[in-house]
């Protein structure tokens, strides 16, 4: 057992995938950094992406497989699709998910659809690694989560791991997967750590995880919201309220059964999602529960999400924007009438 940060776990999964399969390549903006200044010492691999997650790959595997791109997401996303169709397993880095708009056509209309609309003859085994999340004082265009944007599209798979264990296991799976996968990394989780076995096996997509067993309330927590759910559960335990925390981990496919089982057990449900509320994962999960588990519910499903606003910059406003431990505790107390 080794304690790893999410950042290092992702780097490990990339290195392992590069070593296992020569068809794996990585493309993105400044995933190495220092291109054009190779003649100076210390410039190579200067960045490893904006959070240093890919650092060392260029040095280890070379510029043919680790390709710094121009700031041209439509160009290199399209290239990833063509490369994937013809035999490579490209991983592309979308520096922030907020940049999805400039290359959304490639994901929505090409990556997601070529298999279906051209008669099932080809596949697009590519992974988009992207950085999501508020709480970095990064303003409206570098802080969104946008989970549901990609989850909405048939043909794409969506993964959003919370801890280092899941990050490594799910990334290994995503790279081996034959469909296009959006792999979302939360910037506020990169430096969090947990035990990650060195020989961790890939974790299948579509399998959620019960992070804490409980009997009174089910808290379904999306990515970083697991942190607040855990804190809330610890507090609520002190007043004898037992919370079960469900981390779906992947959103397309979604482990509906795991969610329904927990709902049947507790009858009380709170969904916590850092995204904006309209057409969000929270609203999707909530609707599924009312459709499939209506008779098991003791009360209406409660959604705790960000407000219907862009992410604000100033700390008091941004902290207000993000769902909190307190909001979860208050919601549970209200639900349990204490």
């Amino acid at each position, binding site marked *: 057992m080794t304690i790893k940060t999410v950042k290092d776990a992702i780097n490990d999964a990339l290195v392992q995938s590069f070593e296992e399969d020569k068809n794996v390549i990585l493309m993105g903006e400044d995933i190495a950094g220092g291109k054009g200044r190779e003649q100076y010492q210390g410039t190579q691999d200067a960045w490893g992406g904006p959070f240093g997650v890919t650092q060392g790959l260029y040095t280890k595997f070379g510029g043919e497989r680790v390709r710094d791109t121009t700031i041209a997401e439509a160009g290199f996303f399209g290239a990833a699709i*063509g490369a*994937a169709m013809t035999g490579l397993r490209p991983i592309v880095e979308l520096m922030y998910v907020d940049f999805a708009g400039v290359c959304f056509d490639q994901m929505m209309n090409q990556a997601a659809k070529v298999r279906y609309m*051209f008669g099932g003859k080809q596949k697009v085994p590519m992974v988009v690694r992207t950085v999501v999340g508020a709480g970095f004082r990064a303003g409206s265009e570098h802080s969104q989560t946008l989970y549901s944007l990609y989850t909405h599209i048939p043909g794409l798979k969506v993964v959003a791991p919370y801890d280092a264990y899941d990050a490594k296991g799910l990334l290994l799976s995503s790279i081996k997967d034959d469909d296009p996968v959006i792999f979302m990394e939360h910037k506020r989780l990169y430096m969090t750590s947990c035990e990650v076995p060195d020989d961790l096996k890939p974790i299948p997509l579509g399998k959620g995880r019960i992070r804490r067993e409980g009997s009174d309330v089910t808290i379904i927590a999306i990515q970083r919201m697991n942190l607040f759910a855990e804190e809330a559960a610890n507090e609520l335990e002190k007043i004898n309220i037992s919370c079960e925390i469900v981390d779906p981990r992947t959103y397309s496919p979604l482990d509906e059964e795991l969610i329904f089982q927990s709902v049947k057990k507790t009858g009380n449900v709170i969904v916590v999602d850092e995204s904006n509320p309209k057409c969000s994962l929270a609203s999707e999960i909530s609707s599924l529960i009312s459709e499939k588990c209506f008779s098991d519910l003791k009360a209406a499903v409660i959604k705790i999400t960000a407000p219907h606003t862009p992410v604000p910059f100033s700390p008091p406003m941004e902290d207000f924007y993000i769902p909190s431990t307190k909001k979860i505790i208050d919601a549970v107390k209200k639900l349990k009438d204490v």
Partner: protein
Amino acid sequence: MIEKEKINWIYKKIFTIRFFEERIKKIAKEKKVPGYLHTCIGSEAICVGVMAALNQDDWISSTYRNHGHAIAKGCELNEITSEIYGRKTGICKGRGGSMHISDFSKGMLGSFGIVAAGPAVVLGAALQEKINKSNKTCVSFFGDGAIHNGAFHEAAGLAKLWDIPMIFVCENNGYAEATATDWHLNTKELSDITKAYDMLSYIGDGNNVFEVYDITKKAINEAKQKNTPIFLEFKNYRFSGQYEGDTQLYQPQEEIDKAKQNDPIKLAKENSSKYGLNKNDLEKIINEAKEEVDKAFDFADTQPWPQPEDALEEVYVNYPLEINR
């Protein structure tokens, strides 16, 4: 000197495409098939001339105006017509339709409904060829309308930066939908746009199939030799509307009449003796082409419709849960 077999192939294909598209115009008028139809009457020589320079397993991308590319790349006529008719035995199992005729097993990466989606995808295939030290030729077809789209420029920039020997083929047919090319261009020549990428470019007569073939063949060799992308602009005229049913009010009659003098089929016929085909040879090829096209349309008409639930298939290679919950 072009070998006899290739000359016959060129003639067969160019007539097949024209007959095919004329039949499409007819069934469109009769409202015999569902959906949008885009014919390529006027660009047959580009489809055939470029493909004559390729092998079957070379990679191409096409657009919603793809019938000619698909026919020239070797897709089965019966499967193309069945697809257009929306039948289960269509080339895309009825899930694509006329705008998405594409057969991966024939080297088609896709026929995209989004203008300028293709160049970046072909860039990726060419990057794969480069990394795997393979040597398949990679060609992206697109129209003059795509030249302003960002995705084209992003692909062009990366192709040049990464020394990717892919071929950009721009079919300059005079119109981007209902907008004249001479109005929408900011440069004198369309291919001047590639100067920003320091990319080699050549302009050819898109009505002359042999000129297209010659330029493409040379460009492929040069691109591979110099490890560089090359941009080819073939000028032609879009006799068809943007889609079948387009009133074409924006295309003046005198312009159409003038263009007809350079109709690629007319030129091919006129040049036939120069390429060693006598009148009988030519007639035989024309009759065969017509017969094959007619048969393919009759075939499609007899094909079964897909089951409604077939719509749920092949969204993913592997999806652990039921899609239609």
